[in-house]
């Protein structure tokens, strides 16, 4: 056993134990760590946003860079997002509170416009391409079989969500097959998520036993 003498390791240990103390019950030690987590997370995010977005995209081109480096036209281009951003604060002035709709409209319009083609390409066309049976699947029997199972699974699972017709006859058979795939999918996703959390738990115990107590290598 070789206990760490590093003060920062001890800080991390105290915080880890503080969060784990919630397993016993909600207590002041946990609440301290929880509130610390919230404050630090926000402060960290503010710092990242300043250095990754505000400074390089707004502050530097608008206020730091001279006109010899950035043209007046380009400088003026950055006034638009500045004004849009400032409109958010109009929310606190009742007479002009409606101006808050401007930045929201910009963000929503941009997001919706970017989402449609991107989602269409990645979540529909690419997924359909992955589901379709192609000549390549005949190269090996196992690939062929898994491709057929996958295809049947996708079609039946989609049909399970088809509520425009009563589920009877062939549709009933298909939707019941779909449930089988969906249940296996939910179970697998649950198992996968549990194992991801387990891996974090193992990581914390490794930290306590190796970095702090020096009990394991």
């Amino acid at each position, binding site marked *: 056993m070789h206990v760490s003498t590093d003060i920062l390791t001890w800080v991390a240990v105290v915080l880890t134990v503080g969060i784990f103390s919630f397993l016993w019950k909600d207590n002041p030690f946990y609440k301290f760590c929880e509130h610390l987590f919230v404050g630090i997370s926000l402060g960290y995010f503010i710092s990242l946003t300043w250095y990754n977005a*505000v400074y390089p995209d707004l502050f530097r081109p608008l206020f730091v860079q001279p006109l010899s480096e950035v043209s007046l036209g380009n400088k003026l281009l950055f006034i638009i997002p500045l004004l849009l951003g400032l409109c958010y604060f109009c929310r606190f002035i009742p007479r002009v509170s409606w101006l808050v709709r401007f930045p929201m409209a910009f963000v929503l319009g941009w997001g919706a416009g970017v*989402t449609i083609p991107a989602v269409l390409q990645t979540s529909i066309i690419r997924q359909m391409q992955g589901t379709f049976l192609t000549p390549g699947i005949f190269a090996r029997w196992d690939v062929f079989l898994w491709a057929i199972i996958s295809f049947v699974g996708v079609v039946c699972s989609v049909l399970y969500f088809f509520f425009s017709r009563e589920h009877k006859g062939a549709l009933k058979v298909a939707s019941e097959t779909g449930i089988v795939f969906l249940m296996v999918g939910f179970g697998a996703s649950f198992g996968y998520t549990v*194992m991801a959390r387990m891996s974090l738990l193992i990581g914390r115990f490794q930290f306590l036993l190796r970095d702090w107590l020096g009990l394991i290598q």
Partner: protein
Amino acid sequence: MKRTIPLAIVLTMGITMMVQFFVPHPVSVGYYDLTTRWIRIVGAFALVLGTGSFIMFHSDKVRRRRQGWYYSIISLVALVVTTVIGLGWGIRPGSILQNVIYANFLVPLNASMFAILAFYMASAAYRAFRARTKEAALLLIAAFIVMLGMVPIGASIWGKLPELAEWVLSVPNMAAKRAIIFGVALGGIATSLKVILGIERGWLGGGKQ
């Protein structure tokens, strides 16, 4: 004007962003890059608004001495100290923010917070995972195969278990996921179209103005 201009902005931005996706011209790419920078800037202002709300909520709690007010002081002090360190000394690898705050405060807090979920998920699974029906049994079996297939004990129980777990994840699980992805994608596209065309106006807020 109070409603028409925002709706016009949504329509213009939505259509131009959709069109630029299919036009690989430098002007179109430049437009995308510029608006992406603008979005980051506008998003940063929203962060200021959120931070302001956070500070107001906690300072009000402290001022009125509401239950647990002393914890609010911790949140406020943590926010100020982290922000001052981050803005003052930078965010580069090796900086105080990364080496001290991130590595020794944020990582243990974050990892521990999510790690305790393992206990709650196991407890929830114990109560919920009862093979009462055929479907519940399927869910249970799939979860066990995936969980055991990912740890060394699974391979020592049966050598083919990791392979089976991999198969469950990549064939039936993928099929179910794809069906759900189709639904989510179509829902997302429909909602986006409703926003662009001004059919969905909830974001404008209530009132006649």
